[in-house]
């Protein structure tokens, strides 16, 4: 069974059709990169998948359970709040600008949701959080506050925070776009290290080499549609004119 299924999703802001009929599915443990020019609808697609944005039409299904669908009157209906909260537990999201809680310490950022949302035991949650921070190389920053960390460290805390809830699928919305090349490197390294956790990942990114190396599948989006989709070596060596022009020099280098 697919973890995530999106069928014929459409979304527009006013007159602007940002997503024009996109369908995609993500299997268990699969790592999918979404690449494409700015404004191609990549982030909006993630925001629809994570229900931060409502679809205009289409279907959104997690583990066979319908979260949203187009009703008989053509309007999108979402499942009742209680069911949505259950469905929501399947996924996490890492934001471009981290969105850590500035008034919580690093440790509390990671362990608070498991305690107050999932009602897990406090000590157990603390232990899990510390293990995750260790994995992120941030064990010594547990008592620091986000404002005392570098961007790369913040993003690693955000990843630990998302992992603490044990998601089956983790979305990344341009996780390194707010970081300089050095910090980008450390965050990408951490994301790569998650591959052995067998969590499915959907990564919107502008880091081509990273997308090529880590992904089971690459999706190239432009103008609100999926132009091409396939194994990284296929997409990066594509003859498709639009793909070629986007990858530009990069495509040549990676060929």
């Amino acid at each position, binding site marked *: 069974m697919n973890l995530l299924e999106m069928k014929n999703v459409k979304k527009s802001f006013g007159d602007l059709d940002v997503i024009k009929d996109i369908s995609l599915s993500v299997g268990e443990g699969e790592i999918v990169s979404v690449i494409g020019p700015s404004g191609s609808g990549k982030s909006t697609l993630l925001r629809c998948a*994570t229900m*931060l944005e409502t679809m205009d039409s289409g279907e959104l299904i997690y583990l066979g359970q319908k979260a949203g669908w187009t009703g008989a009157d053509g309007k999108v209906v979402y499942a009742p709040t209680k069911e949505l*909260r259950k469905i*929501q*537990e399947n*996924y*996490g*999201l890492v*934001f471009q*600008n981290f*969105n*850590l*809680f*500035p*008034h919580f310490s690093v440790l509390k950022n990671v362990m*608070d*949701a498991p305690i*107050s*949302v*999932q009602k897990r035991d406090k000590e157990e949650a603390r232990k899990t959080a510390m293990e995750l921070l260790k994995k992120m190389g941030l064990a010594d920053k547990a008592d620091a*506050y*986000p*404002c005392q960390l570098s961007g790369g460290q913040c993003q690693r805390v955000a990843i630990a*925070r*998302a992992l603490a*809830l044990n998601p089956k699928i983790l979305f990344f919305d341009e996780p390194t776009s707010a970081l300089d090349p050095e910090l980008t490197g450390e965050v990408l390294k951490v994301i790569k290290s998650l591959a052995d956790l067998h969590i499915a990942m959907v990564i919107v990114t502008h880091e081509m080499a990273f997308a090529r190396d880590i992904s089971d599948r690459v999706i190239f989006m432009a103008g609100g549609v999926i132009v091409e989709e396939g194994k990284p070596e296929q997409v990066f060596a594509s003859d498709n004119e639009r793909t070629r022009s986007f990858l530009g020099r990069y495509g040549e280098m990676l060929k």
Partner: protein
Amino acid sequence: MQWNTMFSQLAGGMLVSTQIFVVTLVFSLPLGLLISFGRMSKNRVIQGIVKAYISVMRGTPLMLQLMVVYFGPYYLFKIKIGNGYRLWAAFIGFIINYAAYFAEIYRSGIQSMPAGQYEAAKILGYSKPQTFFKIILPQVMKRILPSITNEVITLVKDTSLAFSISVLEMFAIAKALASSQTSLMPFVAAGVFYYVFNLIVAVAMEYIEKRLSYYQ
């Protein structure tokens, strides 16, 4: 008249002033938060009513509002008002006036919060009340503290307006002493009292601000 009689009388008035100050804060701070919800409500009727209320509270003198609260029950509903109602009228007048100001301060703070904080909380599964009380409100309090301090300091001085409905707070007593003794001293002493009161308020608020400065 001796200095210590004057001081002890003023100190008695100070007690009433402090009472108005404390009661006003204790009730108008939470009430203001509630009103700010109404002000931001998607329901246009609620929003309209709250908007009008805030507009009147901010657009008319507090002294006039105190008069209306005090004399209103008699003139509007022919309810006989006793002497004991004076202080209550002052409490009510101050609370509804300050709640309106606090509501606008809360609103400015809440609306200045970046959407990302709500989005992160939603993704992590926090319920709406949890999001507000755990994530949003603590950050809002830090943001609005300087504006709150301003209002609190104004409130200390505004308590003197209660004299307009003959509440025997410090200013009313100073005025009575000044005219009976044909001396400016009671006013000067009252001024010192208000000043010291505000000094304490300022120090206390600064302490709270410092306590909250562990993050930026």
